[in-house]
Each structure stands twice: as structure tokens, then as C-alpha cells.
């Protein structure tokens, strides 16, 4: 049978199954194949907080969404074109997101009466018309996999487990994915269990062959590689990019990297990654808690290391006192907050942007801290370098605000040339910096660089620069304890001025027509959805501008001017309006927020609607005003 091949420009696939079904792995592999093929792509894993939530239940469903295209894309996609549902729970939890006309591939083996009842299906959705309007492929994935593996000396359980590879094979066939890398991957992963490796490879190949031979699939699809700038690429997750950014910053600054961290979802993977790279001089310290984690990092910074701590919201809520100490000591320190759903334990595996104001203000007293936020998984690399640059140059703790979506999402990354990375100069103090009236020389730990207002960083081991610093207010210059009212006022204002004066690039506005009346202002991981939404709006012939903040503190110098150039400013955030508040307070601009706190990234189409409505209402407003 010769099969049809159809060319499409983009596809969104969602794999969904039980927590134990290996959906994350399947998704990862499909992503790797897709990356190797040269598509642009973006991914969104979505899994429960439990390690293995009870089999066959709705809370136990684990999903992985992948968007790939022959052109530059920005988000993991709003609605899947294809849903792979490994069991009734997966179908029930995900079907509502698939538009009518979409493709649904179900593992029929799992649609037993018991399994159906467990998730509250009164009737079998495969039979009762629930799937009318979808292109449904009924595949006995488990049975077929087990059958294929009959000859292998493995347990029935292991054979069943390989069904995810069978489905991966099928999907790989369906979208013409290259398969070599997956075979190599499986062989490496199960290197110690060659039979299991062989079985998985066999299942994978069988899935492919099933696509090739069964009449159920008559069309396969081609998504051409996306044109991308010349260079070498790899697919990268946000947490990995962040870890690499920190290691790169260590190289660029010549400072040994020291991570003090306590495990917490979704930040733990940075600890895991960094702990592998000891030959890069990276020290990782799994502390007894978050306070010890940042404390150790600060101690390491005092000793001349690049001190870093990684955590998520609940951990940040514990680190406030030590961050305040770092502000007072004026030592470099990078605090990575991989934001998740809050408040409290909240939604540990979901994404949110609700720690911005905590990062701004979560310390006693006036304790300003610069804030940097990456906009996409790969951008975590550059953002980490930027955070370190600021921390080291200005001797200050710096917040790096990533989130669960960036952490676990992935996209192609144009691997940078190491020669192009920024230099970061620690400029340790080497000698006295103050000549007294009597001509003698001293080291004053709080005598500042007049340009940056940074104080000297003198590390133990440097003879003659012995000094003592602490969290009590310090006399300007000498750093000695001082309770003097005027000195305190001066020091509070100087610390504020130092942060306010940090040298950061101007904000760039994406406004192709140059005539938009509405500016959409965002920060962090909403970049993809906002930019995609703006493109949609523009495709509809309307005009809208987009600016995305990398620096939340201080704001870029030109931000105020930009805001005034637009009639309306829309600020979409995955919180109740935290950036909005800062913008309104600072610039007295009547910015409107669009806020969702759903633990999920925005959908581009939804945002596009919001923008269009705003344009429409403004148009009405204009004509109304014109009519007066």
C-alpha cells in the first residue's frame, strides 16, 4: 500500500497517560527526534505532584505537549492537533483541549469497564459517540507491544511498559521523524540491561512498522525543517540552560562556582545538573534547608566564589533574612527562583509568575535587589550570565526569576560561540584604597567606586586587607558599625542608588508598523504566548506593539518614555497583576492587566482575543470621543 504524504507547516502533539506510563520520556524522545530533524519546536510537560499517583485516575495523568513547525514558533501550542491517550483517564482529562477534527490515538486495551468507571465514564467513549467529529485511531497498544516482544526474555510487566516506545515509533512514522538517535538513546539508557534495551528498540520499530503497514493510517505528514540562522543547535530545557549559564559565568569570571541549595520542585534539576560538573570546578552543597543553602552560598561569596542558590517560592520565603544580609554586606550572590503555583505549597509542579513582588520586597527594611527574568527556555542561559554580571560588578545579590514552564519546557538553542560570551571581571581588591590625612594607607571595605557605587571585594587570603563586615548599619566608607541617623539615611539611599543605577540595555519594542496604539508589556515566560498573540493580531491586519522586560529592577531607562508613546498598555501576567502594580506606581500609567492564575502558560489565541477586544474598545472609545 502506498501511503499519502501530506505537507503541513506545524503540528501540536500531546502525549497523555498514567504517571507510570513514561509519557515524559516519550515526549522527550519525540522532541529530540524533532530537534534533530531541524524543526523549530517548543514543549510543555504537565505532570502531577505525586511521584506515581494512583493508576488510572484523573489526578494521575501525566502529559507532554510538543509543538513543531517549519517556521519560527514561540509556544508549545494552544490546542493539540493530535492526542495520544494511553488510558481513559488520559482521554477524559485531555479531550476537551482537542478541537473537533483533531486526531485522537487511543490505547484500546486500557478501556476496560473498570478503568472507565474509575474516571466516571458511564459509557465507553470509544463507542458512545463521544469521539464523533474526531479522527480516531483505535490501537491495541499494549497487546500489540506484548505480542511483538513475545520472543524476548523479559517479564510481562516490562513488555507492557515498552508500549510507550511502540507509540513513539508510530508517531515517528506518522511525522517522518529520524529514528537513529532514539535507538542509540535506548541502547545507552538500558546499557546494563541489554534485553530490555533490545525489547524497547523492537517495540519502537514495531510501532513504526505498524504505521507503515496498517490501513488505519493512510496519510503521513511532513513538516519541513525550519529555516534558522546558520550555526549549531541543540534542544535545551530551561533548567539545563540556566545551569549552563551559571557554569559559563564561572568560566567567564574566573570565579569558582558554589551552589548552596535545598531540593525543591521545579528547581531541583539545576542542583542535579551542576553536581555533575565537578571538573568545571563546580561545588554543589545540598544543605539542610533553604536558609543554610543561601547562607553557605553567601559564605562562599565572602571567600571569593560565585555563590548561587536555587529554589522555588517556598524556599524564597525562607531566604529573606539572608538576602537582606547579603544586601547589607554587598556581596555578589545569585538567587534563582523557579516560580511555581502558590501560595504556600500551592501547585508544586505547575507554573506561575507570582513571586515578583516577593523578590522585590520580601526583606525587612529597605533592601533593594536587582531582578532579571528569562523569556524562554534557551534564554535562561543568557539571563543567568546577565544575573552574574550584575551581581559581580555591583557586589549585590541578584534575583533570577524563572518559572516551572521555562524550567521544564524546551526549544532549540543556537549554541553560542564561547568567544562571544561577555567577560565578567571580579576585580578583587588587592591593596589599600584610602590614604589618611597622615599619609598612611588603609583598606576601607565600604569605600565605593564612584561610577558603579560598588564597594571593593577583598577576599580572605589577601594580606593587609583583613576587615570585618556585618548586618548592622555600617559607617559610609570604613564599614564600622554606626548608629548615626544621618549615616543610616545616607547608606539606605546609597544602596538604593546603586541598584537604581545599574547599567542595563534599553528596552526594545517590537512594533513592525511603528504605528500601534496598544503596547503589550510582559516579562518572563509569557514572551512566547504574547509574541505569538501579537503576530496573530497583526496577521489579522491590526497593529499592536510588544515589549518584554528582561530587567524588572531596575527598569530600563527608556521604559517610561515608551509607555507614554502608546494609548493603552496591556500587561498579561500569570498572577494577579504584580508587574502592573510596579509599572502603575512608577509611571502613573493606567496599564490594564490580563491575569490568569491557572498554573499553565497563556494560550496565544486567547491573548490575541484580549488584544483585539482592547483594540476594538479603544476604537469605539475613539469614535465616541470623536463624536463629542
Amino acid at each position, binding site marked *: 500500500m502506498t501511503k499519502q504524504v501530506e505537507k503541513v507547516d506545524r503540528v501540536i502533539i500531546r502525549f497523555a497517560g498514567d504517571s507510570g506510563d513514561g509519557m515524559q520520556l516519550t515526549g522527550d524522545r519525540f522532541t529530540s527526534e524533532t*530537534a534533530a530533524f531541524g524543526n523549530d519546536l517548543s514543549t510543555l510537560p504537565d505532570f502531577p505532584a505525586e511521584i506515581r499517583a494512583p493508576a488510572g485516575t484523573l489526578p494521575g495523568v501525566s502529559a507532554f505537549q510538543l509543538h513543531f513547525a517549519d517556521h519560527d514558533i514561540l509556544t508549545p501550542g494552544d490546542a493539540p492537533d493530535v492526542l495520544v491517550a494511553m488510558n481513559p483517564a488520559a482521554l477524559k482529562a485531555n479531550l476537551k483541549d482537542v478541537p473537533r477534527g483533531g486526531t485522537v490515538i487511543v490505547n484500546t486495551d486500557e478501556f476496560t469497564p473498570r478503568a472507565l468507571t474509575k474516571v466516571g465514564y458511564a459509557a465507553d467513549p470509544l463507542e458512545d459517540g463521544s469521539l464523533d467529529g474526531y479522527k480516531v485511531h483505535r490501537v491495541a497498544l499494549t497487546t500489540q507491544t506484548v505480542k511483538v516482544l513475545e520472543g524476548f526474555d523479559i517479564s510481562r510487566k516490562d513488555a507492557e511498559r515498552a508500549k510507550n516506545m511502540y507509540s513513539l515509533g508510530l508517531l515517528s512514522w506518522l511525522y517522518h521523524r529520524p529514528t537513529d538517535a532514539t535507538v542509540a538513546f535506548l541502547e545507552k539508557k538500558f546499557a546494563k540491561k541489554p534485553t530490555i534495551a533490545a525489547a524497547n528498540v523492537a517495540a519502537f520499530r514495531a510501532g513504526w512498522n505498524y504505521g507503515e503497514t496498517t490501513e488505519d493510517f493512510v496519510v503521513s505528514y511532513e513538516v519541513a525543517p525550519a529555516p534558522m540562522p546558520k550555526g*549549531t543547535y541543540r534542544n535545551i530545557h530551561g533548567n539545563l540552560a540556566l545551569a549552563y549559564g551559571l557554569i559559563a559565568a564561572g568560566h567567564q569570571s574566573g570565579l569558582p562556582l558554589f551552589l548552596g541549595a535545598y531540593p525543591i520542585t521545579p528547581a531541583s534539576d539545576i542542583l542535579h545538573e551542576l553536581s555533575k560538573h565537578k571538573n568545571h570546578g563546580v561545588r554543589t552543597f545540598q544543605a539542610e534547608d533553604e536558609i543554610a543553602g543561601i547562607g553557605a552560598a553567601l559564605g*562562599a561569596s565572602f571567600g571569593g566564589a560565585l555563590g548561587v542558590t536555587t529554589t522555588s517560592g517556598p524556599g524564597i520565603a525562607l531566604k529573606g533574612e539572608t538576602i537582606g544580609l547579603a544586601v547589607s554586606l554587598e556581596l555578589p550572590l545569585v538567587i534563582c527562583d523557579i516560580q511555581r503555583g502558590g501560595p504556600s505549597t500551592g501547585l508544586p509542579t505547575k507554573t506561575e509568575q507570582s513571586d515578583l513582588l516577593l523578590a522585590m520586597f520580601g526583606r525587612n527594611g529597605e533592601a533593594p535587589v536587582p531582578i532579571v527574568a528569562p523569556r524562554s527556555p534557551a534564554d535562561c542561559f543568557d539571563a543567568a550570565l546577565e544575573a552574574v554580571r550584575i551581581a559581580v560588578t555591583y557586589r549585590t545579590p541578584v534575583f533570577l526569576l524563572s518559572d516551572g514552564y521555562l524550567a521544564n519546557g524546551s526549544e532549540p538553542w543556537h549554541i553560542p560561540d*564561547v568567544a562571544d560570551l561577555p567577560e565578567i571581571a571580579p576585580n578583587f581588591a588587592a591593596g589599600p584604597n584610602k590614604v589618611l590625612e597622615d599619609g598612611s594607607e588603609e583598606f576601607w571595605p565600604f569605600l565605593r567606586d564612584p561610577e558603579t557605587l560598588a564597594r571593593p571585594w577583598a577576599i*580572605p587570603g589577601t594580606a593587609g586587607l583583613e576587615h570585618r563586615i556585618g548586618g548592622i548599619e555600617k559607617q559610609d566608607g570604613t564599614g564600622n558599625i554606626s548608629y548615626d541617623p544621618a549615616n543610616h539615611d545616607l547608606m539606605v539611599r546609597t544602596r538604593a542608588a546603586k541598584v537604581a543605577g545599574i547599567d542595563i540595555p534599553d528596552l526594545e519594542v517590537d512594533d513592525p508598523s511603528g504605528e500601534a496604539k496598544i503596547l503589550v508589556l510582559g516579562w518572563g515566560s509569557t514572551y512566547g504566548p504574547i509574541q505569538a498573540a501579537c503576530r496573530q493580531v497583526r496577521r489579522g491586519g491590526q497593529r499592536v506593539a510588544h515589549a518584554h522586560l528582561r530587567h524588572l529592577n531596575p527598569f530600563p531607562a527608556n521604559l517610561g518614555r515608551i509607555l507614554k508613546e502608546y494609548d493603552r498598555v496591556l500587561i498579561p501576567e500569570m498572577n494577579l497583576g504584580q508587574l502592573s502594580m510596579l509599572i502603575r506606581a512608577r509611571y502613573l500609567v493606567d496599564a490594564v492587566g490580563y491575569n490568569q492564575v491557572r498554573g499553565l502558560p497563556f494560550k496565544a489565541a486567547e491573548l490575541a482575543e484580549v488584544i483585539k477586544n482592547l483594540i476594538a474598545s479603544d476604537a469605539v472609545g475613539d469614535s465616541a470621543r470623536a463624536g463629542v
Partner: protein
Amino acid sequence: MPELLKLTTKDFKTDQEVRWCPGCGDYAVLAAVQGFMPSLGIAREDIVFVSGIGCSSRFPYYMNTYGMHSIHGRAPAIATGLAASRPDLSVWVVTGDGDALSIGGNHLIHALRRNVNLKILLFNNRIYGLTKGQYSPTSEQGKITKSTPYGSLDAPFNPVSLALGAEATFVARSIDSDRKHLTSVLQAAAEHQGTALIEIYQNCNIFNDGAFEKLKDNGVRDRHLIRLEHGQPISFGAEDERYGIVRMPDATLKAVPLEQAGDSVLIHDAHAPEPDLAFALSRLPDPATLSPTPIGVFRDVTRPTYDRLMADQLDDAARKLGSGKLAELLTGSDTWTIS
């Protein structure tokens, strides 16, 4: 080395005014430490004092070395990061009974089990000094203080027992006013590889005056103080009335008159691989009266230090994998190229 450096006590003094109450035991400890430092033969720039918050935690300001006066309870954590990343430094922690055992209890016990190369001086005055006199985790039960006008309710920690329960490799106790003894214990701690905890009984003459009088007063202290010395029989007492520590059939320790005890007096073994004896010795004093109180080194055993193990892992990795190349790392193994 010591000869080369030629440092003196004066070299370790700073120009900062010492701001403790007149008569505070902290002065004596400061003098002892400043007097002891030159004998270490370590250059001033290679020494760091890290403290928390409390009267005692003002200590670093008065030591002409590198120093950090940090926040309440966190000094062991901060010092752990410093020592783990800079095994070349001599890192000292100064802390109080509130700082170390109340808010900072967790960092303390974890530092002990990790065996980072830290020397921890715990100034135990059995009271919160800086906040003007609340009871502390080492205050005797029933203590009347500002926050417990009807008497405190909780049993105190015994810092030595706690440290031994937390896998400490070095635990000692000394007294602010006994400079010679304190110096000998500082010496032993400095020589120890790993975390060393020294509990120093320190008089707060403002809020808890005389807490250790019994152990300090020339006239009576011999009746209450047991001076532990490795390899020596564990005995104490006034000249007319000496006791030896023996193990009772029920396995506890007891002080019995020397003549009765005879050969059964225990010999102190600070280097015993198991902390059983050290622990039993730590239980000797009555928590309320502190009698009889052993001072000296309870335990001093060797276990690889955290900072050394960490450095070894880095060296091993570099040896096996070669020093990390950034470009290689960023590229990884799974790439594609657009040309």
C-alpha cells in the same frame, strides 16, 4: 612557620572599641583567643571569624583577621560555605547558647555530622544576653527570667550530649576564666581535622551572674570540676576528698571516693572510636547544679572532612575527565547544524 610570621597577641587586636558590659566573661575569652592565635602560625589573612547575633557574636569585630558578623543562628551555615569552598583557610565560628542551640540548632548539628573544617566556640552563659535576659535552651528548668516570670518549663539541652548525638568528631568544654585550660582546648581544636565544638562556660554578669561560680571559685571548684585528660584516670575532688569515676553495674557512671574505687576508675579515652564513654561523661553533671562538670576534650576522633572530600571529588573529576571545557559542555552530544 610561627617563627617566620612572628605574630603577637597585639597583631590580633583591632582598633574597634570592645562593647561588652564591664565584667563580662566575653573579655576573658577574647583575650585567651587573641593570645592563642599567634601560636597557630597562620597568617592573619588566612583566618576568618564568622559569628551570628548575640553579645558573644560581636567577637569578630575585635579580631584583626577577616570576619563576618552575620545573622542570628546562621553562622555555622555561612561558615560551611566558606570552609567548603576555601579549604586553605582557618575558619572559626563564634556563637552563643541562643544563637547556636535555639535558632541555629539545626545548622550546628548538621555542621557536626558533616565534619566541615570549622572551629566552633559556643559561649554558653545560659541566658540571652543581647536581648536583655530571657531564658535560653541551656537555662536550668524553672528559671525565672523576663520571659518566664513563673519559671521556665523545658529541660535544658546539654550541648555536649547533643553534639555527640549529632556525630561530632570533636567536642570539648572549657571556662571563660580559666585561660590556661581554655588555651589548651583551643589548641586541641585547632589541631583537629574537621568540625570542633568547644562549649565555653561564660559569665553574663548582668543577666545571669554567677551561673558557673561553683566551677570557678578557687575555694570550691575542685569539688565540682572534673578535668578530663586523655589517657588519664577520670578523677576529681578537693585534696581531702577525691573521687574517681567508675562504671556502675547498671552501666551508668558514678563518682565514688577514690579509695573505694581503686582500680576501677575509668581512664579517659578521647580517641575512642565510639562516643559511648564521652556521652556517658556528658551525662555526669546535674542539669540544675552542674555538678560534677567534666571539662576538657570529651571526644577527638578522625573522620575525613567535608571540605577535603569535596575538594577530592573535584580533583578526581578533573583528573578523570580533564579540566572542564566550556565549549564542549555547551555543545553536548545531541546537536544539528544549519549551514
